[in-house]
């Protein structure tokens, strides 16, 4: 088993706000414990407002008020030494950013500066961390772009001159040009069409294999996880509710929420009614008692309403936080919606 590149222990990160004398605390990340191994793709799934973006903000050491780490730790094990996010100084963060810890952003249109040529953007981003300037830097960038199947002319172009897929490849290029050990990809393919999406995903996968980097891949689209991730973790209402190898998560989920996520994917060649999960994700400023999924859970019993289930080991590499995980049945392939969603 590979070593861990990052260890997250009991992480709690809250938004603490004080507007007009009313203070509000939003528990966006509420006790997440997980690890990411070297050279693996770890998929994080969860709805909007589940806290997944806050979680990766902490992972990326981009903690700005009102977000605050209240408890727990995020320890990276980089080649140049350990790095602890919660206590890092700005100088330490700068030392690891892009070189060791990198970030592929969502929405390639707004990430790239529209009035600067791509080449200038590359220079701004990467010249300092790489410690190269002038011709040497340009050669490295061109070699890297070639790996992403982008011609060197891209450096002379403005963002609006490129297609959506090319722009996304440019942002991947920016994130990977310094050969980081750990890459966070935040919904890199949302709003790309299917043909381009597949192309971009296989590119991320290839470059990850080539550099042997660890990737945390965040998206709410389970079909992307099915094809990209080695392991998948599901975040619900600020907590990790299930984590396991991709195959198990799809064919033998042990949490009703995962079972639902997998079952709700429509497929070509199958027109039977897909269940939509009723209700909404809980308000993180005032989460429900006990298991946070219980108001929407078809398996909920009294115990679920009172006590929050711990994340327990249920199989090799497979953890789930559900009191009734033994009763959860996979919904895929069933001839009629049965089991938990009946």
């Amino acid at each position, binding site marked *: 088993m590979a070593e861990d590149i990052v260890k997250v222990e009991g992480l709690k990160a809250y938004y603490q706000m004080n507007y007009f004398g009313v203070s509000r605390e939003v528990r966006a990340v509420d006790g997440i414990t997980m690890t990411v191994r070297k050279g693996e793709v770890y998929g994080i799934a969860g709805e909007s407002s589940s806290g997944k973006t806050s979680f990766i903000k902490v992972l990326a050491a981009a903690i700005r008020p009102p977000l605050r780490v209240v408890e727990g730790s995020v320890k990276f094990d980089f080649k140049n030494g350990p790095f602890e996010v919660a206590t890092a100084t700005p100088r330490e963060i700068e030392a690891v950013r892009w070189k060791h810890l990198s970030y592929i952003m969502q929405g390639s249109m707004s990430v790239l500066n529209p009035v600067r040529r791509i080449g200038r953007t590359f220079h701004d981003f990467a010249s300092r961390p790489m410690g190269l300037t002038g011709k040497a830097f340009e050669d490295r960038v061109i070699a890297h772009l070639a790996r992403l199947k982008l011609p060197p002319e891209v450096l002379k172009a403005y963002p609006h001159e490129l297609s959506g897929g090319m722009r996304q490849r440019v942002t991947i290029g920016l994130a990977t040009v310094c050969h980081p050990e750990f890459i966070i990809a935040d919904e890199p393919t949302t709003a790309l069409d299917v043909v381009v999406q597949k192309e971009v995903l296989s590119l991320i996968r290839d470059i990850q294999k080539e550099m042997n980097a660890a990737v945390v891949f965040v998206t709410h689209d389970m079909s992307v996880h099915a*094809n990209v991730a080695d392991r998948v973790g599901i975040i619900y209402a600020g907590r990790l509710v299930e984590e396991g190898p991709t*195959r198990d998560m799809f064919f033998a989920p042990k949490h009703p929420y995962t079972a*639902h996520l997998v079952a709700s994917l429509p497929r070509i060649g199958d027109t039977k009614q897909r269940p939509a999960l009723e209700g909404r994700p809980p308000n993180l400023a005032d989460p429900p008692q006990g298991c946070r999924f219980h108001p929407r859970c078809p398996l909920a019993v009294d115990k679920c309403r009172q006590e929050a289930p711990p994340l327990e080991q249920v199989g090799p590499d497979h953890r789930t936080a559900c009191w009734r995980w033994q009763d959860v049945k996979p919904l895929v392939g069933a001839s009629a919606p049965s089991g938990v969603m009946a």
Partner: protein
Amino acid sequence: MTTLLDVRDVSKHFTMGGIFGRKTVNAVMDARFSLSAENPEIFTIIGESGSGKTTLARMILGLEDPSEGEILFRGKKVTRHAGRAEKLAFMSQVQPVFQNPFEAFNPLKKIERYLESTARRFLQTRDTAVIDRAMDEALQKVGLSLKEVRGRFPHEMSGGQLQRCAIARALIPNPPLLIADEPVSMVDASLRMSIVNLLKSLRDDLKVSVIYITHDLATAYYISNRLIIMQRGRIVEMGDARTVLDSPQHPYSKLLKASVLSTDDAGDGKLETDPGMVTAANGLVGQAGKLVARPDGREVRVYG
């Protein structure tokens, strides 16, 4: 049988550039289809970005005049130059749901303001109780309620919630035709099905026809009755949704189907697309060809 919407050989060209180096872009070329008034259906337009599907939608909404051909809604020509009253009457019949809810809502105003102005305009009333009830009804249809929405700004909601508000707004005048431009591309997977199911129930229960624009073949297969597949402004395949997607005939349709991420082999990490398919599909861009009917009811563009 009366037709609700009739799109007759519509084309749209955009001219780019100034006096020097003028360039014409053919966004839509010879699109034609019609929707019947009696049988509400979900009619899907599939295509990659830049295939002209949004331009086609804008023309149907009367936001853009076709360069050639015409669009008839209930026998009347859709035009950008209609009078005020005529336009309002048309707008209460055809309502849009746009791609990005963050752009649809004014970030400086509360969400209910947008809903309220729609309600006031189409219900022709100033009675706040009536307006509130109409807003609440529309929001209930999309799984929200006025209580939750009132007083919130667009940035306080997630993309999914906001998109549902946008659909609720479109539902206020009870239109017979809804034009939904990629309504689920910004929505969570778990809510996606509730929106797709919602479109389905709009069709089945409220008899609303929906023009559903998407690049997601799986949801298209799930809800649509008929569909067209567009490549760079041209319709390349058209027909019954199941027939077309079960065995696509045009190389571009085949490529689209092959690009759909499958969950059947979850964890195997298979992501390669056959490069031959991509070349075959791209090689046909710019060739005119013509749509030829097949015995199974679909039409496929053939070349040469």
